[in-house]
């Protein structure tokens, strides 16, 4: 089943010196339960593509369908995790996680249960009543993911979710995300500039070109990822593919090796 279908998507931005084409004829298809990553040089429009999928900004041409229906705005079928988490700073950890449930009319008792379970899942027991400013980057990221999972969207849209984390925390969070995806089989579209992360996490990696962004290359990631991180990362297949993707991105970024 096709979950996300994007055809001939175009997006222009108005700038002081004329229009800038951000996305040109982008075609993307994501199957239900698939984990797809979009990588590309910075400024290639990969976040723009994600925001269009989220329904936050409109396209200038082409069709965007999610679950067979045209996207006209944000919807609770698509959970979004933003680069800088976008937690509500005036709400506590528990209130942040609870927010989406409340908005969707979940009964009070059920809210309590879900919040309690998720707080335990992300290991933040004892921090329920802290405000975001009292949390570390990794904790904020966990809350951002938990609050999106709380109302159980079918699709997760992740915009460089681990970009602001230190290397160690990032690896821990990647493993958590991988386990989460393996357990829930949600459809995931993630944008990142980290090639290692893309190959490690997803089933398919799409490489975008420099602006105007279009999908120029596609890599299937077919090796087994049920084992420990070390097993995967030290695997020759993994490294071979990672290098290929890295070269593809580098060519797009205008590297001298092109």
């Amino acid at each position, binding site marked *: 089943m096709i979950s996300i279908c994007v055809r001939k998507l175009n997006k222009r931005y108005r700038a002081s010196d004329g229009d800038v084409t951000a996305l040109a004829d982008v075609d993307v298809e994501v199957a239900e339960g698939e984990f797809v990553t979009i990588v590309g040089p910075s400024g290639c429009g990969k976040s723009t593509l994600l925001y269009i999928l989220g*329904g936050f900004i409109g396209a200038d041409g082409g069709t965007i369908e999610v679950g067979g229906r045209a996207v006209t705005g*944000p919807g609770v079928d*698509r959970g979004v995790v*933003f680069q800088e988490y976008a937690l509500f*700073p*005036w709400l506590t950890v528990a209130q942040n996680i609870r927010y989406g449930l409340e908005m969707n009319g979940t009964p009070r008792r059920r809210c309590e249960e879900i919040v309690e379970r998720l707080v335990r899942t992300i290991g933040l027991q004892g921090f329920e009543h802290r405000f975001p400013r009292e949390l570390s980057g990794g904790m904020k990221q966990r809350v951002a993911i938990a609050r999106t999972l709380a109302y159980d969207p079918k699709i997760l849209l992740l915009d460089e979710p681990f970009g602001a984390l230190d290397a160690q925390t990032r690896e821990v969070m990647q493993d958590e995300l991988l386990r989460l995806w393996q357990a829930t089989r949600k459809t995931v579209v993630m944008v990142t500039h980290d090639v290692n992360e893309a190959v490690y996490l997803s089933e398919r990696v799409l490489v975008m070109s420099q602006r105007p962004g279009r999908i120029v290359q596609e890599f299937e990631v077919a090796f087994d990822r049920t084992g420990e991180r070390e097993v995967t990362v030290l695997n020759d297949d993994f490294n071979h593919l990672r290098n290929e993707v890295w070269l593809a991105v580098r060519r797009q970024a205008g590297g001298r090796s092109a």
Partner: protein
Amino acid sequence: MAVSVAAWSPAGARSNWLRAVWHYLPIAIVLLVWQLAVDLDLVDRAFLPSFGATLRALWEMTVNGEIAVNLLVSIYRALGGLAIGSAVGVAIGLAMATSRRADEFFGPLVATTYSLPKTSLVPLFLLWFGIGDVTNMLAVLLACLLPVIVSTYHGVKAVPAVIVWSARAMGTSHRLILWRILLPSASLSIFTGIRIALGFCFVVTISAEMIAAKTGIGKLIFLYGENGAYAYMFGGLLALVIVAYAADRALLAVMNYALRWHDSIHAAHGDG
């Protein structure tokens, strides 16, 4: 969360105490200079009563009830005008920040009336509404309106797009975005506007009462001033200053609690 070491160590307790002394020192110095200037006959007692004489006059008026009656009326007008002005100001500021039509309608009005001294309208209000609360409160309301509109507008405009987007993604309706997202997100800015308005509300009340009231601290000051009873005039003024100061401290305490989630609240406003 950074817990100040000063909060629990004995050395910290002393430094807190010192800080409080330091904080009020300038006021003490001014009062001392005032008292000495009169005691040493540097100024004419007929034109400037001493601080001591002012306190005695204030005590006398407190005992005979003169202060209570007039102060309550003034507080009622000042805080009433502030409350209505703030509510209307937040509503207009929010409308301007979220609707282009509201912005186009109110924008020019706000820009042109911003620097207008609102007390200059009191004679006109006097003509329309006569002597009494309505005229006084209307002047206060107008004076409070503009800083609250402007601060609400800028506060709401500064709400990051991703905050609104994530709220929309989680199913928040347009109407709820206002209540659940924009107002709390802009609350530091809104509170700051209300705090500025709080300062205005007492000033305008006093000015308006001098022209358009039969009671109130402004009228009291005016009458004693006209009769040359300056100690009593200063006494009334002192009572008002104390109330205005207490009101500001109270608002600050509310603000510090309501905005305890905010990064800058401790750095920007925390001195207690």
